[in-house]
């Protein structure tokens, strides 16, 4: 997903209701209408998709794209579902993104423990490497990685994608967590040391619980970023039964099977999982970053 990776900024918004509601002028209502209209334009492609995924191609051609379906048809949805074995693709995406999220957070945690709390020597050049890893276009690594994974026999396995994204995501995680941990309360670390806890115990008993908010935000973002990735999965997952949801949707474009409503249904199925994910985690996503005192 490549392109449009967003990084979690402070997504927390807390719009407190005003003590006394000010008077609303005509101009206010006009601006509100403008904001609502803008939101409707953003939603419009999705509304079109929803309307037309439950039509037959004939129904679409007779009534046009703006008409409600004359009867509910699951033709497009079931055709796509069966053709790509959708549950398998769903499982592949969950497995790859879940592994990357857990491993990526673990690697970020260890790195940031050493760099942010341990303040090891030479941490600045190291941080620069992680920052660079985060900015690089994936094309600049693609062919060497292709050779590497072919030579170790992991090409066309999900582990190739899991390993690559564990590193790419943890590069961002290391950068972010290190800056959080560099202002970690020293008193807590001292207290743990006085209690006789070693570094390993301090990490799990003190550092992880205190920064759990930030870690869980990273976990969620790593999951969704990996889910949405395209270039590396499309290069490394050749076999049909190893592919992820976005690849399944993209791979059938231009297939003669894909009539107008099946294409619409394929896109709808492709975006439903992330939409559900967004609805479940919206609060965590928006609450987490500031609550974890991330700057």
């Amino acid at each position, binding site marked *: 997903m*490549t392109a449009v990776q967003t990084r979690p900024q402070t997504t927390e918004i807390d719009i407190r209701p005003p003590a006394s509601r000010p008077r609303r002028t005509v101009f206010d209502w006009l601006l509100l209408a403008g904001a609502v209209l803008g939101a409707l334009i953003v939603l419009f492609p999705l509304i079109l998709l929803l309307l037309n995924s439950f039509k037959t191609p004939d129904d679409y051609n007779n009534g046009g794209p703006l008409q409600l379906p004359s009867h509910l048809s699951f033709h497009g949805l079931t055709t796509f579902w069966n053709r790509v074995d959708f549950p398998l693709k769903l499982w592949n995406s969950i497995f790859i993104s879940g592994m990357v999220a857990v491993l990526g957070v673990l690697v970020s945690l260890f790195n940031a423990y050493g760099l942010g709390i341990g303040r*090891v020597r030479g941490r600045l050049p190291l941080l620069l490497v992680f920052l660079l890893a985060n900015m690089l*276009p994936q*094309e600049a690594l693609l062919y060497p990685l292709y050779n590497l994974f072919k030579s170790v026999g992991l090409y066309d396995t999900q582990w190739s994608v899991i390993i690559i994204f564990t590193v790419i995501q943890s590069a961002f995680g290391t950068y972010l967590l290190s800056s959080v941990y560099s202002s970690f309360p020293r008193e807590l670390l001292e207290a743990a040391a006085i209690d006789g806890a070693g570094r390993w115990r301090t990490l799990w008993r003190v550092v992880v619980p205190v920064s759990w908010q930030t870690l869980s935000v990273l976990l969620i973002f790593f999951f969704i970023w990996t889910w949405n990735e395209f270039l590396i999965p499309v290069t490394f997952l050749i076999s049909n039964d190893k592919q992820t949801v*976005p690849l399944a949707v993209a791979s059938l474009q231009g297939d003669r099977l894909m009539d107008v409503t099946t294409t619409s249904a394929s896109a709808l199925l*492709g975006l439903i999982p992330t939409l559900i994910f967004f609805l479940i985690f919206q609060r965590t996503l928006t609450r987490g970053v500031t609550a974890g005192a991330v700057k």
Partner: protein
Amino acid sequence: MPKLRSRSRSRSSTLASGAGYWWYLVPGFVLVMAIIVVPLGQNIYYSFTFYRGIRPPEWVGLQNWQHLMHDDKFWQSFENSIAMIIAMVVVPTLVGLLIASVLFDLVGKKFGGKVASFLRATYYIPQIIPVVVAAIVVGWIARPQDGALNEMLGAVGLDGAQRNWLGDPTWALPTIMAVLIWVQLGYPVVVFMAALQRVDPELYEAAELDGANWWNRFRAITLAVIRPEIFVVTLTCTIAALKVFAPVYALTRGGPGTSTIVPSYYSYSEFFQSQQVGYGATISTALTVVIILVATVFLIAQRRVERQEEQR
């Protein structure tokens, strides 16, 4: 004073002595070397070789780089990157700024925070859709014969405006730009709305009393306060715009002709379609250099602005 110093020394011997922490960096260090640093070095090496993927690379010096300088397709791909920057940085930042301030200043204050956060979530939705799926949604709307866009144009009598959007060399690039604007808009809206909370309402009231109009207040107060976020958004989105791949792959494969070619798709097609690995590596190395340059210039500019601000 001496007392304090001795305490901090004993603290550093138990807690912050670097040596024991090195072990925690071993897994991350090994991984980043194997997956990032060494492959990046290999890719740079390939750019000086003739390499078609089967026989080992042959050193050819600067040949690929010389070819790159005279390759119209390469320069076209960077011209199209500017279109991607307009679609992913310029339009979303400006429109996002407008939407964020309307939602925060007006909708949030006069119509309630619930309405504002609901609208914000709506603008954000396309951000969480896989980009390739978002591209396919827009591609589906812009289908050549029976696409929703053409059907709607026909329905309002604009038959003349119907066209094969993605198959038309003048319209394919704007269609891809539409995908990116749609996807990207929500990001600045969310970031700027969070930033606007730092604006002190009393400053606004004071400026109002001084007779400053909305535009002056916006420029002197709002923009000044949220400038760090504007820097972050424009930097991250510019880098993302230079890396655009999936919409081009899914919708046009760089065509028709070279009208939608972008650097990342060009290097991908050199790697895996033309089997010109050496040249593909040259394109991707050039892209890497451009990205690092852009990031460096941004960070220097930001540092300079901050320093001026401190001196004031």
